[in-house]
């Protein structure tokens, strides 16, 4: 097979190339020509098209993301920050953890099962490439209206895809999110987080070094899957009529790759979790044997990305024989080999003297491994195809990519949205005894409506499809506020991790909404008894070419960077997903924020459910009448308008300090943060999760409660004011806890006590646990079977 060579490119400067179909603008094509001093070869064009895609280059977002470094709070815990495959955080005792969250939104809409499955695979390889053993995953999912037929297709596919891949990989799924909103109907969000653990000394950097060192490709052979996924699928909007509700048949396809007209092919990859499991164990054994100089995972943009980034980061050259790449389809052309996003592959650099040991370990794990090139001192990335040079570029030019300052514009409807105050919405009647009967019937009705809404309801239908026990270190998992994992079996050192995001708040105010997402994740980690340490994020937005979306993005990033500084938790890395829109309609701006905390002794973790009867329930924090973007407004009125709850980061910090210290001193038996659905949903969840063992959920029969509301019942039950939590004091610890809260200046009011067969709000209503549980548990099974 002949390929477009460097010599041919020099000889035929005017040959037409399909740069537009590959997602490059005319200006970008011209810059490539200027960089190389000639037209690119087809292979080079393939490399630049994927590397300069929005997905790989962050060309529209980099300018803004700099704030995460510029405003980073000083933190001794940060061992490797933004720029590596994932940030690395020191958690003490010689351990470091690395964590990152990444989107796989577009593939998960086109082909939900494989899209979601390979999303898990991709983030796990990111973590593995840092030198860490992946130990847990979480997923943050957002879908269209729960009762829409297409939502059922997407939900069933995504959940079974994550279940299929994550379970087979042997990684516990310890938490996440599940929400529904019409804005995600044509563009679901599938964000997957992975956590890895290593000893400090084991940190691997993705920078090639040492001319003469061998470049080894290991894992699955390269096939014609996912070609152009980064440039065509993840970096463009869905057309209004594309990728409709007809399953895989709606996939975006392309037939105009350089190298000739070929059959239309799906841009979504196909996952093999078994090979990934072997790859994990194989790589960990390679690390232990000390035979890895550098390593990088192959994700978006495949070999094109791994070679350019390894060489660019190490400021070295690399010579690669593309014909040495093992193929699943012998008809693949060099550009296709470069762009293929076949899963379960890694690229490593090893010294020649270590090569035999390296290949021996791969053979033991039945992982195919092939030397495809070597590190050079030329500073150039050179590739050949059966001896003919087809690529000769400075790797930095591909790895760096263009940088755009996109126009931004405050959305035209922003003020009208803010003015649409939820204060005008009809509220339930309540308060006072009427003729000896409890008079809170309407309040109880609203509570059950919020509890039974798809966003408020029990997520067990999803989480029961995920293995949360494997590896034996899961201390808390769903439905608790945060996932808690034991890291050291002897010392009981552990970590807590939570992800949160609220597109509704961000639609009302992206700056405040993003800060609220961070505050909620931070609070969730604290409510589990841990000290928040570091932040990752997955920023899901519409098209950056839309100035209104770009304004939302800039506001969101500025809000997150400011809040991270204020809370003292640095951003260690993240991911940007643009073009989340169908036709001209963007999703709500949806930054998903993950917070990682450390807990010195996981035996002191705080579960979210009431543990035992007869303990005092304390409301922490200040409640104001804040209903803008609330779950009550959505579930009861389908309303979105007004202002999101006020952000008070110093109050969040004080609340977290109280919770972590109280956990340390053993004062509490449970704690639960207040967020969507306010105190109403929190109390109901505390009752229903109550009585369950550690990581278990099924054993719990629930623990009731009787509370008295010290103020307007409606506001106290459904307001979503931030910086609040409920805490349950162990018997005898009430006074010490009250002192602790007072010392930190955190308002604390005893609402009542745990126990009894119902959730009773004195003078208003009493809902038997069975009815509460029925409203909570029946929703998702009824929707999705």
């Amino acid at each position: 097979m002949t390929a477009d060579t460097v010599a041919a490119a020099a000889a035929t400067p005017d040959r037409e190339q399909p740069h537009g179909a590959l997602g490059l603008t005319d200006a970008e094509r011209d810059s490539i020509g200027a960089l190389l001093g000639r037209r690119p070869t087809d292979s080079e064009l393939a490399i630049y098209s994927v590397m300069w895609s929005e997905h790989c280059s962050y060309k529209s977002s980099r300018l803004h993301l700099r704030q995460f470094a510029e405003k980073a709070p000083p933190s001794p815990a940060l061992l490797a920050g933004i720029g590596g495959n994932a940030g690395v955080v020191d958690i003490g005792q010689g351990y470091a953890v690395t964590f990152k969250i990444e989107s796989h939104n577009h593939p998960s809409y086109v082909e939900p099962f494989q899209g979601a499955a390979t999303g898990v695979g991709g983030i796990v390889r990111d973590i593995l490439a840092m030198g860490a053993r992946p130990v847990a995953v979480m997923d943050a999912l957002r879908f269209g209206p729960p009762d829409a037929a297409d939502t059922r297709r997407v939900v069933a596919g995504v959940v079974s895809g994550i279940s299929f891949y994550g379970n087979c990989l042997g990684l516990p799924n310890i938490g996440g999110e599940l929400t529904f909103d019409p804005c995600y109907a044509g563009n679901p969000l599938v964000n997957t987080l992975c956590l890895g653990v290593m000893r400090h000394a084991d940190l691997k950097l993705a920078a090639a070094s040492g001319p003469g060192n061998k470049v080894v490709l290991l894992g699955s052979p390269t096939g014609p899957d996912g070609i152009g996924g980064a440039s065509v699928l993840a970096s463009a909007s869905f057309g209004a009529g594309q990728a409709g509700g007809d399953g895989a048949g709606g996939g975006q396809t392309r037939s105009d790759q350089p190298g000739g007209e070929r059959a239309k092919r799906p841009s979504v990859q196909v996952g093999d979790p078994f090979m990934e499991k072997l790859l994990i164990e194989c790589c960990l054994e390679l690390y232990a044997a000390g035979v890895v100089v550098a390593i990088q995972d192959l994700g978006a943009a495949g070999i094109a990305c791994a070679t350019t980034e390894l060489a660019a980061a190490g400021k070295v050259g690399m010579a690669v024989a593309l014909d040495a790449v093992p193929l699943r389809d012998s008809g693949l052309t060099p550009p296709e080999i470069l762009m293929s996003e076949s899963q379960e592959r890694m690229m490593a650099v090893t010294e020649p003297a270590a090569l035999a040991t390296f290949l021996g370990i791969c053979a033991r794990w039945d992982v195919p491994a092939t030397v495809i090139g070597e590190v050079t001192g030329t500073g150039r990335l050179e590739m050949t195809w059966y001896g003919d040079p087809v690529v000769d570029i400075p790797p930095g030019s591909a790895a760096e990519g263009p940088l755009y300052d996109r126009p931004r514009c405050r959305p035209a409807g922003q003020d009208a949205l803010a003015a649409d105050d939820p204060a005008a919405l009809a509220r339930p009647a309540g308060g006072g005894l009427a003729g000896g009967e409890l008079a809170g019937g309407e309040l109880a009705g609203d509570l059950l409506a919020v509890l039974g809404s798809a966003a408020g309801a029990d997520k067990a239908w999803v989480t029961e499809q995920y293995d949360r026990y494997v590896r034996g270190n899961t201390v808390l998992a769903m439905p608790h506020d945060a996932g808690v994992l034991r890291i050291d079996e002897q010392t009981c050192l552990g970590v807590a991790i939570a992800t949160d995001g609220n597109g509704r708040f961000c639609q009302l105010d992206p700056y405040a909404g993003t800060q609220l997402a961070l505050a909620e994740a931070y609070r969730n980690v604290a409510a589990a008894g841990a000290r928040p340490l570091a932040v990752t994020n997955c920023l899901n937005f519409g098209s950056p070419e839309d100035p209104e979306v770009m304004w939302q993005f800039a506001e969101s990033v500025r809000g997150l960077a400011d809040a991270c500084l204020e809370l003292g938790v640095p951003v260690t890395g993240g991911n940007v997903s643009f073009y989340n829109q169908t036709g001209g309609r963007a999703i709500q701006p949806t930054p998903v924020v993950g917070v990682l905390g450390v807990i010195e002794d996981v035996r002191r973790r705080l579960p979210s459910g009431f543990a035992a009867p007869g303990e005092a329930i304390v409301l922490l924090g200040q409640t104001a009448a804040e209903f803008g973007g609330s779950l009550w407004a959505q579930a009861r009125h389908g309303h979105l308008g007004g202002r999101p709850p006020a952000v008070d980061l110093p109050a969040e910090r004080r609340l977290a300090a109280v919770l972590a210290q109280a956990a340390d001193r053993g004062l509490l038996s449970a704690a639960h943060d207040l967020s969507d659905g306010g105190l109403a949903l929190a109390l109901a969840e505390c009752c229903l999760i109550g009585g369950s063992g550690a990581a278990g959920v099924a054993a719990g029969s629930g623990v009731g409660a009787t509370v008295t509301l010290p103020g307007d019942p409606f506001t106290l039950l459904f307001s979503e004011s931030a910086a609040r939590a409920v805490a349950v004091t162990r018997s005898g610890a009430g006074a010490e806890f009250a002192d602790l809260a007072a010392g930190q200046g955190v308002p604390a009011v005893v609402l009542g006590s745990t126990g009894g067969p119902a959730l009773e709000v004195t003078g208003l209503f009493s809902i038997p646990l069975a009815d509460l549980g029925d409203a909570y548990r029946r929703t998702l099974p009824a929707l999705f079977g």
Partner: protein
Amino acid sequence: MGVVTFPGSLDDADACRAVARAGARPVPLWHGDRDLRGVDAVILPGGFSYGDYLRCGAIARFAPLMAELVPAARAGLPVLGICNGFQILCEAHLLPGALTRNAGLHFVCRDVRVRIENNRTCWTAGYAAGEVVTLVLKSGEGAYQADQATLAELEGSGRIVARYADGNPNGSAGAVAGIASAAGTVVGLMPHPEHAIEALTGPGTDGMRFFTSILASATT
């Protein structure tokens, strides 16, 4: 006590932890070695050996180690197959029947209550007959199936070791959660006892006695 690692085994580390906490020495056994390393008992752990390709357990059955294990088990070596291990024991014909796709077709991860129906095996001697314990079920193909004659034979000879106590989470015939060989030395169990050995990381400690039972049996 040997714990076998096949490519795709996942709960091998958990099984080793349970063995160690029971007071025995876990001995890792590698699928490719034809060597049982002199162990007194063997655990086939959960996971997705060989990716569950073809059929759960169907490829693992042909691993070199199994060529040693199968005759040893027939000769009386105690073997406990958990989840995927149970599937492998069925594929290797050390136990009758098969594990099929769950009723409902979803993977199920849930704490389940299980009744110990037979406490005369070397793996269940530490339980009272009829005792109800909480273990962890996590499987997609956990529905036990066998023909009527086999089920009748299992029932009649007391070879049903454990049964789901609250409903039937996966549609198993007769709500069977675990069975034993005729000699009672080879036991297959769908729920995981190794995930119920400490309250911190599981639903309790009910699973521990599978491991202490075999230790007591091996040392007397």
